[in-house]
Structures are given as C-alpha cells and as structure tokens.
C-alpha cells in the first residue's frame, strides 16, 4: 500500500514540474508573483484637495470586485494607497516607500500635477511605470523623454483648444473673459485655450482674472469680468468656486456664453448647489457619463456602476463624478494587466499600456481609450454638451484633436 501511495506522489511532483516548465515563460518583476500583483498609489486624503480622496477609495473598491471575482489570471491585486496631503515633498517620500519598501509592480493614478512633477524624473530613472496619472497636464504624454509616464484623462490643453475652436466657429468676434485658478491646472487650460485662439487670442480675450484657493469667494473677480464687458466667459475653476461663479453671474445679471471646464461639470455637486436655472446654457466637454444626469438613468453601463457602488463602495456618494472616474481608470488598468497575461514585467506593463484600444461602459458613446507607442494620451476624444436645466445635452461632433 505504501509503495502505490509513494508512486502517486512522484507522479504528482513530476506533473507539477512539467506544468511549471510549460509556463516557464512566466516572467515577473518585483511586485508580481503567481498569486498577487502589488499596485501603489498616492492620493490627497487630507489637506486642501481632500475632495479627490474618494477616487482612491473607488479604485480600491473596484479592485475588491476584481479580487472577489478571482483576480486577474488567478492573481489577486494588492492595492496600497497612501496619503500625501497634496504636498509634493510628501509624495516623493510616499512613492519611494511604495517602490523601494513595499516594492510595488508600478505606481497607478497618483493625483495632482505638482505631486506627479515631483516624482516624474525619479520614476523614469527607476524604470517603474507612473501609469494613468490623475492630472490633465499635457506633459504626461511624452514617450520619448519619459517612457515610463502616461496620462489617462483628456489633457487640459486639448480641452482648452476645443472651447477655442467652438468660439471661433460660433462667435468669431466674441469678447472673452477668463477666470482661472492660480496654479498649474488653471494655467494649463489657459495655455491650451490661448493656443487654440492663435493670434486672435490677444484681441478676443478682454480680461484674464485669477483667484487663490484660499480666497473666500470669486465675487470680485466676476464683477471685474462683467465690468470688462465680456460677453463670453471661460470658467476654469474647481467645483466650489465654479458653483460660486455660476451663482454670482446670475446675481449680477451677467449672461455671457458660459464655457465650464470639465473638472467642475458635475450636475450633482456643482450645478445643483449653484442653482439649476442659473446653469441653463452652460457648455462643457464630456468624455464620461455624469452619474447625476437623468439621461443615463437606465444606461446599462451606469446601472452596472450603481450596482458596483452599492456592493463594494456603499459609503461613496452616487452624485460625485470622481467615483465614476475611479471606476473607469481602474477598469483600464485591469485591461492592461489582462493583456500582460503572465509576462508581468514593468516593461511589458508599459508596452501593453501603449497598445490599448477599448471603450469604457461609463464613457460617452464614441469615446475610446486608444494608445500607441507614440501616443501616450489614452483618452483624447471629447464632445461638447450644453446644459438644458436638467441634463447635459450632447451636441456637435466628437472632437478628436489627435486625428486618429
């Protein structure tokens, strides 16, 4: 009896050996094993930008879903998200902890332009992917100099160009007033907008006014824009200040053609507090579906999203577009990992990230996620939409600045 038993074990071992060799081509970098993929991330859970901390929680919830459904090719995702309080010095420290101590495979969706600038050089020196950064600055899509860094959302300058193009088409002799936040996010939008207007920028823009995150409100800035006689308004503000600007414009009876940057285009958390009737006619660009927008109420993609939120992130706010953002970007990185299969080296992760061609259920129809070794801007297409008092109504063509 013992002998038979013994032979079985030999056979077992042999079989295991064979199966191992069959899959010999499994290649791993630090942070990936047969059973686990370690992914790092930094988010401002505290400090001035803590409103965006919910993106980190949404991503973690999506990975919970993936793990619950068996992970990716049998590997569970271990997601380590650290707080940097939107302070670049802290980001550097946390990211070094992720890379050198936690030894993650790659850093995914770190948030904030200053934070990402702080680690831009480090990540490329260390050859660790800085994947799908959560900022729209244009400099993240530069494969030649920074092959290990890639953006995700449409970048601010492209969006600025779209608004400029639309103004040139519809209102060539418009007098434009611009309100922008005095930091990298605000200035990137402004640069794209001015490039989009070309040499007419100097004549058409009658007034450019900035505000500080520490200002109590933007009433004074809105008054000087109205005072400058602008009949078109490009509003580059974060949610709180966007709501103030919309409400103040109505209060002082200033009714320009109002272009609102996508960052603050959520019906639930911006237009409702500002007053839906004050927001009629506002134009923005969209690439994702707004969760509070009634027109997507019975859209399959959004219903899956709501079901996922209820199950994995019940404390999350259904009105907050950031949670849709987190869902979408997490889905993209899961796709990349699926494409990597068993070759989980950092180099392969970047290679797969650079040949994506997919669509997201929470993205607008016609918007795709497309990259190539030379195009490190996954989402570039956007479509203009006008607010009719209840929902965003898409109109016009889908702008595709990259032309592919």
């Amino acid at each position, binding site marked *: 009896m013992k002998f038979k038993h013994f032979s079985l074990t030999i056979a077992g071992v042999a079989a295991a050996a064979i199966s191992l060799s069959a899959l010999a081509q499994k290649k791993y970098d630090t942070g990936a094993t047969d059973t686990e993929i370690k992914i790092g991330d930094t988010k401002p859970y505290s400090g001035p930008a803590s409103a965006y901390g919910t993106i980190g929680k949404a991503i973690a919830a999506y990975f919970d879903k993936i793990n619950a459904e068996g992970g990716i090719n049998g590997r569970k995702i271990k997601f380590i998200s650290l707080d940097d309080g939107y302070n670049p010095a802290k980001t550097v420290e946390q990211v070094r902890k992720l890379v050198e101590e936690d030894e993650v495979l790659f850093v995914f969706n770190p948030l904030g332009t200053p934070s990402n600038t702080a680690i831009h050089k480090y990540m490329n020196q260390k050859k660790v992917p800085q994947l799908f950064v959560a900022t729209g600055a244009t400099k993240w899509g530069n494969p030649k100099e920074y092959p290990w860094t890639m953006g995700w959302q449409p970048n601010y300058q492209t969006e600025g160009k779209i608004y400029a193009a639309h103004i040139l088409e519809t209102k060539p002799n418009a007098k434009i007033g611009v309100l922008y936040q005095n930091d990298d996010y605000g200035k990137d939008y402004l640069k794209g907008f001015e490039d989009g207007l070309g040499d007419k920028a100097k004549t058409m823009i009658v007034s450019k006014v900035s505000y500080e995150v520490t*200002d*109590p409100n933007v009433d004074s800035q809105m008054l000087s824009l109205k005072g400058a006689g602008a009949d078109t308004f490009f509003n580059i503000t974060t949610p709180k200040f966007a709501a103030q600007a919309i409400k103040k414009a109505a209060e002082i009876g200033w009714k320009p053609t109002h272009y609102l940057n996508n960052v603050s285009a959520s019906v639930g958390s911006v237009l409702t507090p500002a007053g839906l009737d004050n927001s009629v006619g506002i134009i923005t660009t969209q690439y994702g579906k707004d969760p509070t927008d009634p027109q997507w109420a019975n859209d399959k993609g959004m219903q899956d999203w709501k079901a996922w939120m209820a199950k994995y992130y019940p404390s999350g706010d259904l009105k907050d577009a950031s949670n849709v953002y987190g869902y979408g970007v997490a889905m993209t990185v899961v796709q990349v990992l699926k494409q990597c299969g068993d070759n989980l080296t950092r180099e392969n992760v970047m290679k797969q990230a650079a040949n994506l061609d997919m669509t997201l259920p929470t993205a607008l129809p016609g918007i795709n996620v497309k990259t190539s070794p030379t195009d490190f801007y996954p989402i570039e297409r956007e479509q203009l939409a006008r607010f009719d008092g209840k929902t965003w109504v898409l109109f016009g063509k889908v702008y595709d600045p990259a032309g592919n």
Partner: protein
Amino acid sequence: MEAFVHQIFSGLANGCIYGSIALALVMIYQATHHLNFAQGEMATFSTFIAWALIQRGLPYWLAFLLTFGISFAAGVLIQRIILRPVEKAPVLTNVNVFIGLLLIFNALSGWIFDHTVKAFPSPFPQESALKTAYFSAHESGSFLVMLAVLLALYAFFRFTPVGLAMRAAAQNPESARLVGIRVSWMLAVGWGFAAAIGALAGMMVAPSVFLDPNMMAGILLYGFASALLGGVDNPWGAVLGGLIVGVLENLLGAYVIGTELKLTVALVLIVGTLTLMPSGLFGKRVVTRV
C-alpha cells in the same frame, strides 16, 4: 464707474463675513485675552450641524436657533474641559491647544460630513425687499443679522449682571474673585458666546461661499486682520475693521495689484496695523503699569 461701485459693495459684503468672524475673535479676546486660532474651524463645524439639521427637514429658523444653542453649549464645554487646565499656562501653551482644536475640528468636519461641496440655504428669499441694486438679498440680510448681534451683545454687556461680571473678570480677575465672581465660569460663557457667534457667522457665510471643510481657512486670516485693524478689544471696531478690510482687499485686488497678491495684502495689513497702531483704530490704548 458702475463697476467700481459694484466692487465696493461686494467688498462690503465680504467685509460682513470678515466682521462676523472678527466679532467672535473679539468675544474670546475680551474674556480670555487669547486669540482663538480654532475659531474658523469651530464655525465651519457648527455650520455643518445646521446643514445636517436642515437636511433632516427642520425649518431654517428652528435649525438656526438649535445650532446657536448647541454651539454655545459646545463653547462652554470646550473651555471647561480643554482650556481650564491651561488657563494659567503661558501664551504658547494656549496657542498650541488652539491649533490642536483647529486640526481636530477640521478633520471631524471632513470625516463626518465628507468633502463634497454643499449648498447652504439662505434665510432671505432672493426677491424679497432686501434685494437692492448692489446688495443681494442674502448680503443685506446677513448685514442686518450681524448688526442685530452687535446690538444684542452691546446690550448684554452694558445692562445685564452677567455681562458686567464678564467685563470685570476680563479686566481684573483678582478683584473679580473678591466680589464673588466665578472667573473661570465667565471665561466659559465667553467661549460659549464666541462659538455661537462663530456658528452664526458660518451660517451667514455658507450660502455665498458654499459649505466644505475648508470654507473658513482663508476667511480666518482676514478675520484676524479685521479684528486687529478695528481694535481687538472692541466689538464695534472689529466689525468696522471687517468692512474696511473687505473693501480695501477688493479694490486693491481689482485695480491695483491684481488678485494674485490678496494674501500679501492681508499680511501687510496685519503687520502694518500691529506695528503702527497696536491697539487698532478703535481699540482702547492698553497701558500696562510696570
């Protein structure tokens, strides 16, 4: 020209906001000779309480009064529990405790009520008689509310025995004890008032700047500037200081140095006032017998 007038009035409206916070700061200074660095965050937290009450369906004015009461009680409790042990400690220890409170209240606001921007209703209907050419209904409404608070405070300190006792305790604690005044309780009442006024300031500010955990961060500094400019031991001075700071800030921002340097304006204002007029425009000359 019309824009210029608009700027002045919007400056006055902002001035109201700074004035009401300055009033709360003066309340605590009068009672305890300390500047409460946590005043802004306490006001934000009270405003969140009011918001939560209104969400649960309470009518505005009931929520308003309830928050006023809760904030008063909270102010008293804070003094009794947290500040009494350091009552006799030097200024630095107190400053540290205030900053500890600031961090706690800011974190609590974010933790309990999360960070999304919330609209806060204004008690003054938009089309009511209060709406004038330059002031929105809410702006003139909050101006009147602040005036009412100022008068109520003036009457309280002038005519009620508790008010008199508080003034005595603030001025000469030892003599106050000799006439039987429980000085420590007077400090607690001072904190109660400051918390209640802070709550009121928060409820007046929220409709125009929208409610989120960092609502008061910027405003607090302007509140300090107003209190110091106006005279930190004089409630009327604080409010007038607020109006001056509001208008000055708007005009300089719009016409002189641009909006990028608003905080620098506050810095110059504070340092300038403190060095040239230490007791502010309307404050009493503080003569300390050596």
